[in-house]
């Protein structure tokens, strides 16, 4: 097949084909779904973070007019199997059985004719609890005598693992310099514009479920697997999704309870979360802390790394692997050959931890980049020089890092040098120094990252070329607002030599395509796009056979180019794909694409910040990025992903933090208490530069969805430290709030006076 990179669409910054219906209000989000006879569910949630359920009395609630059912664990016990996790822990029941383990855990569900009545009835459900002592701090959860969250686990540290390479003892004994610090990324909430919601309808044979999810196939499988009496057919539909960021990967209790209610009651049922509810009922992210030491020679060669990574998994260890990812990416872009990292996953009485944009890589990269900056300061070296001196070199690729990740390709030092030029780092640093001389607290910070994408088993695609020339693409990946359909259409239009207007892309319906995986880990354009290409290749292969017959030449005689086959030795023998489709009644292909191994995006980001001396407020004045994204199928979409990720990263460093009281109540339960950044908090412009080192995917894509959220925190953290020079202030955790900066400034001021 000819190169897919010679057409007019791939590589062009096209506007999204998805947008017209979104902008014209024709989108259909979960709360837009309304079925005849539909009932409304409201979940009754625990006001205690840790308690025994003594009794539940639903009689008052049930008596309210318009209430159709009030169910507790006992009513569904035989119908849905609980979640059993891979690490020692008690099961998680879809409605709590005899114990609640976090504030907001669902205990009962009320179903009524309208949501107002359901909410009224929910207030009347009377639950008697015997409160248990909660533990919200993971370090306290590790102490002897701490309240035990899971009876089946011997301690709250339900997950332990370690990785090592080389000889870390030897490295530390040889070192001239050892730097050590404690770092953390606090707990955050993904805050998609659309909270979660589920609608279910059962017609006696088929159960149809609409869920605001990233993984409709997982949900279908969960229903089939966990329902003790599953329906003969299950179809899960992902409607338009208003953002997800990883938090809509898990299958949640509501995803199973609402369909069960529809089956039991014989009427459609809807549950749509409020923002307050979403704050407790949807997984939180990050909440990983680390104690790290780096060993180095006095001229800046990093000899070894030692770390203990501790993840607060919350009440149920469904995603215990998150701190593991942080641990394994911990050497970042650097060639560190001696290392030991111990990973601990600890349960506490908080909403379960789950994936959030980057899922472990933002934490690991924040940790190593902060440590490298610390080492540079300790050695009095330029942080860029220190990075260059320690980076994995291109000739070492593919490179297996200390903790087992195999970086596929790329010139890290070359990319950093290029970034320093493109970003004009020297000029900027000079400017910042001069401004600081005039009393303005401005600083420039740079960070370099490597991260992993294209995970998950495979992705599917089903492509049809209709006799009319229209092309239908059904994909197993399930974008939630990123614009991937436009990218898929660009690939197809170029490969088929047709206009993008002829192409229609559908996704998110297990009834349209039987097997698929979903959207997460920056895999949609990489793995999902790979599947689209493989299906198109399959179609061209089929067409070639037909063309050979129709033109009466050998298949190998035919050259395919931009939608037509031409016989090499008799160029007048030409037939178009369209003719073949018309003659054969259409061509189609269903494929799975398995990339076999992940790929690793990398790049450098730079932030320019100003700190207000009298308040400690930080403003990001400017931001620049150079990312190796592999082939950019649509640079406009790539830019959108990078900018969006950067702003989320900015929110994480400056504003966002999930806060629990010591007695386990969630204090940040609204968007006025929890600081999602707005457009006004972002720099006016993010200067995006792309670099396109090819990968092993057929379209050479690397994946871009998470890089902004990974790179921004260490870049902004460093810029803050630079702005506060010559004070030796360290940013050890996210978020770093104005009050803390103000306090550090005051303390530093006092010390200066002394």
């Amino acid at each position, binding site marked *: 097949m000819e190169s897919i990179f010679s057409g007019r669409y791939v590589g062009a910054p096209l506007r999204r084909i998805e947008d017209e219906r979104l902008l014209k209000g024709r989108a259909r989000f979960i709360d837009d779904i309304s079925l005849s006879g539909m009932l409304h569910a409201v979940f009754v949630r625990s006001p205690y973070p840790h308690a025994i359920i003594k009794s539940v009395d639903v009689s008052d609630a049930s008596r309210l007019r318009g209430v159709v059912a009030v169910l507790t664990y006992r009513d569904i016990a035989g119908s849905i199997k609980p979640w059993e996790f891979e690490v020692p822990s008690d099961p998680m029941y879809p409605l709590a059985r005899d114990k609640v383990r976090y504030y907001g855990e669902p205990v009962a569900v009320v179903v009524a004719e309208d949501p107002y009545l359901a909410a*009224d009835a929910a207030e009347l459900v009377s639950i008697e609890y015997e409160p248990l002592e909660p533990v919200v701090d993971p370090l306290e959860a590790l102490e002897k005598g701490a309240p035990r969250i899971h009876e089946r686990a011997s301690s709250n540290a339900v997950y332990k693992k370690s990785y090592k390479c080389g000889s870390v003892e030897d490295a530390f004994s040889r070192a001239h310099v050892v730097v050590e610090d404690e770092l953390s990324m606090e707990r955050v909430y993904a805050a998609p514009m659309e909270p979660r919601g589920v609608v279910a309808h059962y017609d006696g044979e088929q159960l149809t479920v609409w869920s605001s999810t990233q993984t409709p196939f997982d949900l279908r499988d969960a229903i089939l697997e966990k329902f003790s009496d599953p329906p003969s057919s299950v179809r899960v539909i992902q409607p338009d999704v208003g953002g997800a960021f990883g938090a809509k990967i898990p299958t949640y209790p509501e995803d199973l309870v609402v369909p069960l209610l529809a089956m039991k009651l014989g009427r459609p049922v809807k549950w749509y979360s409020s923002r307050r509810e979403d704050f407790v009922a949807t997984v939180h992210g990050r909440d990983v802390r680390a104690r790290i030491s780096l060993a180095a020679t006095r001229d800046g060669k990093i000899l070894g790394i030692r770390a203990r990574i501790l993840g607060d998994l919350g009440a149920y260890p469904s995603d215990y692997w998150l701190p593991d990812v942080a641990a394994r990416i911990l050497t970042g872009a650097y060639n560190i050959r001696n290392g030991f990292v111990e990973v601990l996953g600890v349960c506490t009485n908080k909403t379960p931890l789950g994936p959030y944009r980057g899922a472990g890589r933002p934490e690991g990269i924040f940790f190593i980049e902060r440590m490298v900056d610390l080492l540079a300061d300790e050695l009095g070296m330029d942080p860029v020089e220190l990075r260059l001196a320690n980076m994995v070199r291109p000739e070492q690729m593919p490179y297996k890092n200390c903790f087992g990740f195999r970086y596929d390709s790329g010139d890290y030092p070359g990319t950093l040098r290029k970034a320093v030029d493109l970003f004009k780092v020297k000029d900027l640093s000079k400017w910042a120094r001069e401004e600081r001389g005039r009393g303005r607290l401005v600083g420039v910070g740079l960070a370099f990252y490597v991260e992993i994408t294209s995970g998950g088993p495979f992705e599917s695609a089903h492509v049809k070329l209709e006799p009319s020339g229209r092309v239908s693409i059904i994909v197993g990946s399930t974008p939630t607002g990123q614009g991937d359909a436009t990218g898929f259409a660009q690939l197809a239009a170029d490969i088929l030599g047709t206009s993008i207007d002829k192409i229609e892309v559908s996704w998110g319906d297990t009834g349209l395509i039987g097997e698929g995986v979903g959207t997460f880990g920056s895999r949609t354009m990489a793995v999902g796009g790979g599947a689209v290409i493989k299906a198109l290749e399959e179609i061209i292969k089929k067409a070639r056979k037909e063309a050979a017959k129709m033109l009466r030449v050998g298949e190998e005689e035919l050259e395919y180019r931009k939608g037509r086959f031409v016989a090499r030795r008799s160029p007048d023998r030409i037939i178009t794909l369209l003719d073949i489709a018309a003659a054969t009644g259409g061509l189609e292909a269903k494929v799975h694409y398995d990339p076999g191994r992940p790929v690793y995006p990398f790049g450098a980001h730079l932030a320019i910040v100003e700190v207000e001396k*009298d308040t400690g407020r930080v403003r990001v004045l400017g931001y620049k990025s150079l990312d190796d994204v592999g082939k950019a199928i649509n640079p406009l979409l790539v830019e959108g992903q990078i900018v969006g990720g950067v702003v989320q990263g900015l929110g994480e460093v400056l*504003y966002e933090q999930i806060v629990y009281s010591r007695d386990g109540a969630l204090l940040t339960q609204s968007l006025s208490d929890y600081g*999602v*950044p707005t457009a006004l908090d972002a720099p006016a412009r993010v200067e995006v530069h792309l670099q396109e080192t090819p990968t092993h995917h057929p379209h050479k894509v690397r994946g871009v969805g998470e890089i902004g959220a990974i790179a921004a925190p260490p870049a902004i953290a460093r810029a803050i430290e630079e702005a506060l020079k010559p004070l030796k202030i360290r940013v050890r955790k996210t978020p770093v709030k104005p009050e803390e900066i*103000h306090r550090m400034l005051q303390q530093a001021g006092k010390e200066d006076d002394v």
Partner: protein
Amino acid sequence: MYPPSFKLLVPQSLDEALKMLAEHGGEAKLLAGGHSLIPLMKLRLARPAYVIYLGKLKELSYIREEGDTIRVGALTTHSEIESSELLRERCPLLAETASKIGDRQVRNMGTIGGSIAHADPAADYPAALVALEAEVVLKSVNGERAVKVSDFIKGPYITDIDPQELITEIRIPVVNGAVGSSYEKLVFRASDFAIVGVAALIVLGKDGTAERVRVGMTGVAEGPVRAQGVEEELEGKKITEEDIDKASKKASEGLNPPSDIRASSEYRKAMAEALTRRALIKALSEAKKKA
């Protein structure tokens, strides 16, 4: 979040509204822009049996100057106040304060009467209104009374309003001469409620002496407060920047601000000083331009 059921009443005139209040006062809540009441109802923290919607009372939406008083109708929106030529000319402090409330959508819906009645301890207007020595006019079927804003707001969400009363107007004494003012608001993220807000007003005499200095603060106490120590320190002086540096330190005198997840008491005190300084410097420079 769904509120419990309530009965909606829609009066067509002020008199009708007052009669409804006379009848249902204790069980009723007044709905103007809805930015405070509706969230409270959705959280089921407010559970009124009756909601009296004031949107039809166009007679309560006005800004005018009469004699030595500026009168602002209770249903005037923040964006109307922000963009009023009269206020920008005659009472820029109120217009500036309104322009810093929430975001555009909030300013288009929210009203000054609703904001004062709600008395959120982090609301912006009260800082400016105590600095301006404004009054709130309250009406009921039994008559009308005027109360100073500083007396009207008793504490967080607590005011001196009778269940049968309705705020009809805010009255602001006109300040003439070489006047400068500024409202400084500290937020971490755009559109948030103030952590601390400080309104400053300086009137300079012919010889450049500060005849009057007023500093109103929000977010630092149970309600709005004046920084009288600062005012006394500066009044009667030909103020310099050094004077302001020194005087601002008195802004937190006697304060014991609340600590919450947004900020500690100690930080709020420090910010009261920092913002007072900023507001006074701007106010002074404005006043000097007019002197």
